[in-house]
């Protein structure tokens, strides 16, 4: 602890100065408290109130939650989240890992490869979604290209197919996020104890075996961190889908975050929108709380073992 009581003879100015750190922190604390606690509770209140087009703070109970779960669009939205979330997290993790392992083979121009794989992370979802929409568009993108090359019957029209459009979101999402996974995995691979690898090599183990048995298990915490962060991205996915498919065709690629926005600002259902937002928060907590507990447990164990 840094603080020390000032001597009793201190002038008033000095005793005030003792609280300078707290005073400096106060505005930020007030703002964050407002943002994290007050605003969140405010949303909960709206969800439990009679609010529809305008806020109406009379208590209504859980009717908006009941409405929400009866709603067909909401069913589609969270089913899409499960499907998209699973494929996106697994896809981006595996691709990121593969790229990291490839780059870790003492390749030439390593910085260049890293720059190429990571740049999508610097670009907004809106830009990403817009460009990929053009690429998936049957009349201007890949389908047209292949047909022009001579394969007249080639079809790649996922983006206009109700049952397949969600996979275009997956492909685009993986494009955007796999570089992020790569960067984290690469940092992890570089931190693996080289003596372990050396010992295995001396024993004559094949490199594929060394990766599976020694290197990958030792970076397990990174796997978990990558997947938790990607899951969090998936749950918050909003602008990517809006730019890529606008939630369509029809409502086939709606996700919860879009539905929240839609209820609040297009349909004037503030209460139900807030209820849907709370479901998004719960989904996040479902991912983050176990992760936080696990991290805390790990830290304690590390400390206990020195």
């Amino acid at each position, binding site marked *: 602890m*840094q603080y020390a009581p000032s001597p009793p003879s201190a002038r008033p100015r000095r005793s005030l100065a003792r609280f300078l750190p707290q005073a400096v922190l106060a505005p930020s604390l007030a703002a964050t408290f407002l*943002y994290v606690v007050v605003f969140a509770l405010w949303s909960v209140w709206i969800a439990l109130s009679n609010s529809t087009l305008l806020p109406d703070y009379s208590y209504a109970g859980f009717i908006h939650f009941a409405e929400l779960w009866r709603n067909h669009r909401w069913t589609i939205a969270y089913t899409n989240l499960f499907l998209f979330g699973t494929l996106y997290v697994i896809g981006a993790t595996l691709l990121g890992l593969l790229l990291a392992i490839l780059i870790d083979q003492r390749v030439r121009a390593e910085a260049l*490869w890293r720059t190429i794989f990571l*740049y999508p992370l610097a670009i907004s979802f*809106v830009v990403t979604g*817009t460009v990929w929409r053009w690429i998936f568009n049957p009349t201007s993108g890949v389908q047209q290209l292949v047909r022009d090359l001579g394969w007249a019957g080639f079809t790649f029209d996922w983006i206009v197919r109700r049952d397949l459009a969600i996979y275009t979101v997956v492909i685009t999402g993986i494009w955007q996020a796999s570089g992020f996974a790569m960067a984290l995995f690469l940092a992890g691979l570089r931190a693996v104890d080289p003596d372990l690898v050396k010992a295995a090599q001396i024993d004559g183990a094949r490199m594929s075996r060394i990766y599976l048995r020694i290197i990958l298990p030792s970076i397990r915490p990174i796997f978990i961190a990558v997947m938790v962060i990607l899951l969090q991205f998936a749950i918050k996915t909003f602008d990517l889908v809006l730019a890529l498919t606008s939630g369509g065709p029809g409502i086939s690629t709606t996700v919860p975050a879009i539905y929240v*926005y839609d209820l609040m600002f297009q349909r004037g259902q503030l209460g139900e929108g807030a209820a849907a*937002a709370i479901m*998004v928060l719960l989904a996040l907590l479902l991912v983050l709380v176990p992760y936080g507990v696990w991290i805390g447990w790990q830290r304690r164990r590390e400390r206990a073992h020195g």
Partner: protein
Amino acid sequence: MADLAVHDPLAGAGTWRRTRARLGVHLALGAFALYYLVPFAVVVLNSFRSLDDIGRHGLLAIPTSFSVAHWATTWNTLCVSGGCAGIAPFFWNSLEMAIPATLISTAFGAVNGYVLSKWRFPGSEALFLLITLGVFMPGQMVLLPWAITLGHLGLSNSIAGLVLIHCVQGLSFTTLFCRNYYINIPDELIRAARIDGAGFWRIFRRIVLPLSPPILIVTVIWQFTGIWNEFLFGVTFSSGTHQPITAALIGLSAAGTSVHQYNVESAAVLIGAAPPLLIYLLGGRYFVRGLTQGAVK
């Protein structure tokens, strides 16, 4: 760093096998690089092609026409988001939003991080936890409260309102980053300065700030990129000519029925992506550092 030769997976293999494997690795990387680079190449090339060329051969084709005129059209006269003054006003809106919000949130984050690492007091760890919770709060949870609050403050549909939101929301992130960095500055340095009679601000100016450039660069890069690219708040709390560029660009992809001016729209998309992309290319090292620190800690 470890002795790299030890880590060479192909050590001991024959020269030919070794060359072949290395070639394979590079070919695989090259194939993946296509997946990442094609979208970028598509917008760059199409921003210089004529509509006739694009209409005839599609977006994914070798250009048979070249003109820089579409860039001027995009900047000055593109019709988007209810106006026909080009993408320029939205670009300036985004700058006007991202620069102050980045600087203010970083300044507060640095001072907060300094207090929470070097001037800890009973309960400060709990306050740190509260502040970091803000990092995870989904935007949807605070949309309605912000809408009502901005209305009361008279900041609806204004860049100032968006600056306020990004400052408050960004505080969590900048405080987390700076605190985790400052915690590694030895306490002895601070203690010695206090014995010499230096106070709170003097220690910050003379000791902590001179050690800060690495973390401040990371924070500024991340804040700027995040705020520039942010969409949900931008589209919810602004409309028409007050929109940041991400909110305006969605109009391009949503205009499903009208005929696309792909060349002009490609240029618009590139302009929307340019500032963060430039920062990434110039400060990539810091970008990656922020990424790994933010994620693992």
